[in-house]
């Protein structure tokens, strides 16, 4: 069980080898890749930034939750930081289990929760030269809300 933030290329083949376990009948992986379009805008590249100690702590909490909910053997999640080009791997998750149902469900749980909870941010660079921190527009929900008190 490991949740790791890295500024190096993710190498799924090497990571998969660390998950060899002859009790495992199923291994489900998820790759999140930089895609060329988001909300109809052409994307050129992405920057990812993380608050590493808290990201790894919150990430491990998610893996623990996934293991409590589903009968899995092992889970590995690696998330990139730094500048990524189209097609690059941003996040890679692998889950091994005796049976496939648990592997699919735990893998889905990890990516859904990681996107919602782990302190990682994404800045998109568009074909037209503009940039945007995703989810940080100030016209979104809450933008007109009261300050914390």
């Amino acid at each position, binding site marked *: 069980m490991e949740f790791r933030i890295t500024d190096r290329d993710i190498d799924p083949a090497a990571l998969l080898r660390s998950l060899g376990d002859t009790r495992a009948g199923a291994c489900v992986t998820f790759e*999140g890749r930089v895609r060329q379009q988001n909300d109809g805008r052409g994307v050129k590249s992405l920057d*990812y*930034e*993380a*608050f590493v*100690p*808290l*990201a790894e*702590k*919150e990430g491990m909490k998610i893996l623990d939750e996934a293991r409590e909910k589903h009968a899995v053997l092992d889970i590995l999640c690696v*998330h990139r930081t730094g500048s990524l080009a189209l097609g690059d791997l*941003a*996040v890679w998750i692998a889950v091994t289990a005796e049976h496939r149902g648990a592997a699919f469900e735990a893998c889905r749980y990890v*990516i859904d929760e*990681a*996107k*919602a*909870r*782990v*302190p*990682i*941010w*994404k*800045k998109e660079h568009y074909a037209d030269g503009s940039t945007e*921190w*995703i*989810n*940080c527009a*100030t016209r*979104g929900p*809450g*933008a*007109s*809300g*009261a*300050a*914390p*008190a």
Partner: protein
Amino acid sequence: MKKSVRVSYFAILREQRGLGTEQVATEASTAAELYEELKTRHGFTLPGTRIRVAVNDDFQPWSAEVREGDSLAFLPPVAGG
């Protein structure tokens, strides 16, 4: 009585502040008060309702007390994956 705390900014806050970490002297008693103070000083566009705060590398409620020597991090809405 001013306390000295370490403040970290990420993503859009880091860009709007122009740096990632700074030492701040503040009279704010809660994390919420400190964010409002810094938001006004640096012109942050994100309201506190859309930010989370971590104190000494753990998520904390906005009501968390600010103590001498704390490390606070202000976290914009996340977007991993």
